[in-house]
């Protein structure tokens, strides 16, 4: 039953992914100029034979539909051509070296958002309209209404420049950088047993991570709060209380588990939005990840690179949604039946 549900959802992805690649391909065709001329602009002197060879490789002499087919075939193999702005290196190589940085920042932001949201949501739901609930609700409203790039700048001004507590750009103190194993600086530092490097990497994550997490924490907190309030009113929770179970067990075990089911969907949706916020936050904090790569590529009119990064973000978003649907089905049997 569950297997069939997931298979079905996975099959539904195919038209979505085709749609995504179609939009990416054609928006980039709106751009002026011939990609090969751009690529060669970097490479210097080159023969006509080489130009023709490249043109044939990327199918630029063929009809647009065929070009789209070729683009798909190359993209599936991870071949997005040569970057215009990175001395003619392959797009996939440039992208690959940025992935760990973005992964680390996104996971960090995700963790703070979830921990904060669940904690604040649960505490708020215990005393609706109490002092904590009112404060948290106002905080959540601000989190939803604040543009991420501006929050990032305010954090830089306050915690980076005024108080000088935290670094405002980069990933780690370069003198401390650990030997790359996973590419995630915090993990690599721990593997090397280097406490100072771990601390430095962690400090560099705090401000961008907080700015990225804010809207997601706000949305998820509101969801946890309202579904907890709903669940706490239900008979089985009252019954658990009447049985004389300690309040921590009633809230933590009986109520929270059910309250989290509707939260899974909003977490998935918000994680997708976290990815969008990522581009902006990395730009604000000069954080060397995929998002900043994309924004720099836009400024340099490096279309193959923009295309590749946008496709990576879009596919991750689609897969995250699939993952959330699957998880939702595990947690809530009614979803499977529907």
């Amino acid at each position, binding site marked *: 039953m569950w297997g069939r549900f997931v298979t079905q959802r996975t099959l539904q992805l195919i038209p*979505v992914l085709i749609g995504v690649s179609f939009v990416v391909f054609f928006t980039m065709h709106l751009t002026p100029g011939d990609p090969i001329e751009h690529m060669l602009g970097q490479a210097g002197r080159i023969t006509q034979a080489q130009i023709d060879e490249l043109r044939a490789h990327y199918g630029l002499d063929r009809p647009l539909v065929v070009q789209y087919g070729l683009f798909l075939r190359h993209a599936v193999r991870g071949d997005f051509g040569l970057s215009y702005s990175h001395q003619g290196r392959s797009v996939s190589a440039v992208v690959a070296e940025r992935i760990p940085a973005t992964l680390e920042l996104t996971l960090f932001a995700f963790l703070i958002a979830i921990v904060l949201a669940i904690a604040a949501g649960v505490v708020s739901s215990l005393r609706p309209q109490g002092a904590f609930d009112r404060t948290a609700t106002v905080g959540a409203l601000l989190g939803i*209404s604040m*543009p991420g790039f501006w929050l990032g700048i305010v954090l830089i001004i306050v915690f980076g420049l005024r108080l000088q507590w935290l670094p405002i750009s980069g990933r780690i103190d370069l003198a401390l950088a650990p030997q790359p194993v996973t590419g995630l600086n915090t993990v690599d530092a721990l593997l090397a047993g280097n406490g100072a490097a771990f601390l430095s990497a962690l400090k560099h994550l705090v401000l961008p991570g907080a700015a990225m997490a804010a809207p997601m924490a706000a949305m998820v907190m509101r969801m946890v709060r309202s579904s907890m309030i709903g669940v706490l009113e239900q008979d089985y929770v009252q019954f658990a209380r009447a049985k004389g179970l300690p309040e921590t067990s009633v809230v933590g075990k009986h109520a929270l588990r059910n309250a989290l089911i509707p939260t899974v969907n909003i977490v998935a949706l918000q994680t997708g939005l976290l990815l969008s916020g990522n581009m902006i936050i990395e730009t604000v904090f000069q954080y060397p990840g995929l998002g900043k790569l994309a924004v720099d590529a*836009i*400024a340099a009119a490096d279309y193959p690179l923009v295309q590749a990064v946008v496709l990576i973000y879009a596919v991750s978003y*689609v897969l995250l949604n699939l993952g959330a649907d699957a998880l939702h089905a595990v947690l809530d049997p009614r979803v499977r039946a529907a």
Partner: protein
Amino acid sequence: MAQPVTGDQVLEPVAATTPGMVRLLLSNRVAVVAGLAVLGFAAIGLLAPVLAAYDPSAQHPEAIRAAPFWHPEGSTRFLLGTDSLGRDLLSRIIYGARISIFLGVVVVLLTLVVGTGLGMLAGYFRGWFDAVMSRVVDTLLAFPFLIFALAIMAATGPNLVALVLALAFKGWVDFYRVARGDVLAAREADYVTAARGLGASAPHILFSEILPNIIPPIIVLATLRMATIIIAEASLSFLGIGVPPSIPAWGTMVADGRADVASAWWIATFPGLGILLLVLCVNLFGEGLRDALDPRMRK
């Protein structure tokens, strides 16, 4: 960027009367103040040429990065100070309200008309049209909105028409879903059956009978969508691919101030505060509206 509400959340059946809704909305003091503040922002934008002390692009080379008036080095000549080209910040912020509200309204109206129209047709006639639209909508729902807006703007460069289309690209889907669901429910309702029995035409039933009943949730959605659109536009402008640089926009102004955060924090801070206040008021008003329309709140 935050997407405050999904279609399903506002899909509550609207059984209440209009005067009841209005009374409930008016009794929500926060929502009323927020709504008035949004109108205030709109008025500031409209009256910008009268209100602004300076031309927003006029440079004052003698007063570059001037501090706001309460600062020891500030003066009342430039109340909120000036930017790195010596342009008056307050005047630029006043003009910036214009483009934010203009784009918010245009994009929301465009997505509202397209989405509601298609949704009503799909919900009323069902059949192949509904089937095809459902596929399209499922696909669009899987699109990360801001990333595609970014891809489109990266390809076309900053210009207003492309910006409106990029921001509207996916937004109509929410209106489509609400309208389709409500029409689907309404077409079986007694008043529609009665109208059909009396020989009313499909356009008459759709526009005169059903439309007035599905308007309230559409209005709530429109308000909350406007908040999302304003933040998305500011984000694209911040990245330099939104509003063309010749038009003063809050997102662009924050980006302009980024290089000076250490010496002149106000350049990036005040325009962002404008975005925060406007979006906050729009959200508060939209949530007040939603509560007034939600029958469960009516106790």
